[in-house]
């Protein structure tokens, strides 16, 4: 009963002589909205990529809902209920926004291998609902590549959520946005995740964004967890202020 949605134990990864991850442990409870922060080179991206099956860890375990999923390939992780978005926005450029979501719904329904029925009418209703959820209804029939950067981010969110993940991992969901847009964007993620009951882990640079929505914060530094806790706790920690919040504090 007490098993958290995500438990990471001593995750380590080296690239040659560089220790990118030096044994990171983390516990994410159901309903958490967890931010991972840290200066450039702190190991956030490596952590994310190791966590999501792109990189194989040298040591440590990743446990999702009580099951050891360490080193599992991305498509199997996705089928278990782990969704992710990318720092560099990742949509299907020459498909329409609606089709982008349809592809994801088809995969979720395990119909990607269906070879005879026409795909266009399938899951249209649900796809429209997903677009509605992220505020993209009006752009349903536009090519994804023609959408603005912010709208592509929303679309990617819809693609990820179409798979009904219970855990969503977002790598810098506000990358490349203006300050005001960032807040709006993370609030959208936050609202939708709440609505659908999805637990989230996200990496972020912008402190305003982090403190606006995070329930918990993990501070990484040089491949290790430097501090951890609620936003208030983290803000109070002196070493955090020194390595990271320094400029802002």
């Amino acid at each position, binding site marked *: 009963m007490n098993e958290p949605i995500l438990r990471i134990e001593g995750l380590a990864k080296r690239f040659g002589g560089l220790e990118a991850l030096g044994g990171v442990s983390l516990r994410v409870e159901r309903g958490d909205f967890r931010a991972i922060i840290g200066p450039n080179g702190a190991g956030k991206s490596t952590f994310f990529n190791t966590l999501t099956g792109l990189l194989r860890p040298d040591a440590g375990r990743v446990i999702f809902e009580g099951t050891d999923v360490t080193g599992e390939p991305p498509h199997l992780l996705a089928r278990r209920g782990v969704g992710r978005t990318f720092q560099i926005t990742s949509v299907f450029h020459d498909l329409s926004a609606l089709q982008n979501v349809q*592809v994801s719904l088809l995969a979720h329904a395990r119909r990607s291998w269906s*070879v005879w029925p026409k795909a266009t009418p399938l899951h249209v209703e649900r796809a429209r609902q997903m677009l509605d959820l992220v505020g993209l209804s009006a752009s349903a029939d536009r090519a994804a590549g023609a959408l603005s950067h912010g709208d592509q981010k929303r679309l990617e969110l819809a693609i990820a959520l179409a798979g009904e993940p219970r855990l969503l991992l977002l790598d810098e969901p506000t990358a490349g946005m203006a300050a005001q847009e960032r807040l709006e964007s993370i609030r959208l993620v936050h609202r939708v995740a709440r609505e659908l009951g999805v637990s989230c882990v996200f990496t972020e640079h912008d402190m305003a964004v982090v403190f606006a929505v995070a329930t918990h914060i993990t501070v990484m530094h040089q491949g290790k967890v430097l501090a951890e806790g609620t936003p208030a706790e983290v803000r109070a920690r002196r070493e955090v202020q020194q390595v990271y919040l320094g400029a802002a504090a």
Partner: protein
Amino acid sequence: MTRLVPAAVLLLGLPFALSDFWLFIAIEVLAFALYAVSFNVLLGYGGMLSFGHAAFFGVGGYAAAILLKRAGLPPMLAFALVPVVALVVSALVALLIGFFSVQRSGIYFAMLTFAFQMLLYTIALKATGITGGDDGMTGLKPPGVLGRPFYYYYYALAIVVPALYVLYRLVSSPFGFTLRALRANPRRVQYIGVNVRAHQLAAFVVSGAFAGLAGGLFALSTGNVFPGWLNWTASATPIVMAVLGGVHTFLGPAVGAAVYVVLEVLISGKTEYWPLAMGVIIVVLVLLMPEGLSGFRRKPA
């Protein structure tokens, strides 16, 4: 639907309008249309540029020839089995080649397909007892009236049209949809729960199988297969046809195949420098119509 009727009338009426020579060319167009469209399932839909697709066309051709000449079956039975055997043998070869090739993408994928095709080319050259080596295999003839272009044309039509329909359903299906998403963004596709390599491999096998069917069909029309069918230069043919016709429409490559084959016949009859003339024409067409001859009709729906 209204466009289907004139197309059907044209295709069915062609033998009454054309000489045997041009009917023979029409059969070649049918075979290469299937070849180019099946190739484009990979390139246009899956974003995978195979530089060794002649392997499958060639294997289909040799499978047909070996079945007719060496299997010791009654001619009628052997002939009836050609489409099935060409399809199945090329599918198996595609499974083997594809299994290794889809482990890489882009130019490395292309190089792997290229290398496997050269391997098959060497086998065709050296396994003289089976393939006839350098001389290839000649004198293949469909039994009875099917040996005449008039009837063989209808036979080819009865194979190519359903085959194209099957491919059309495939690219319009959830499988084809996912394939297009995969062309745009393989990494994103992984994270919606699709096994990317398995999907690519399946597309590769289908593409190879239908290319092989086209090869078997063509072998029985010309009556010969040669190792040259498997040489790397032969792999450029479906690429040129697909690009010429347009990789973003389903039938674009078929249009490209028709134009390519007919131009080749017309020009090679006039001058021995026909490859030069073909080259110039293709350069001009590609520059004027980067989306191919069928490009005005935009992307696949």
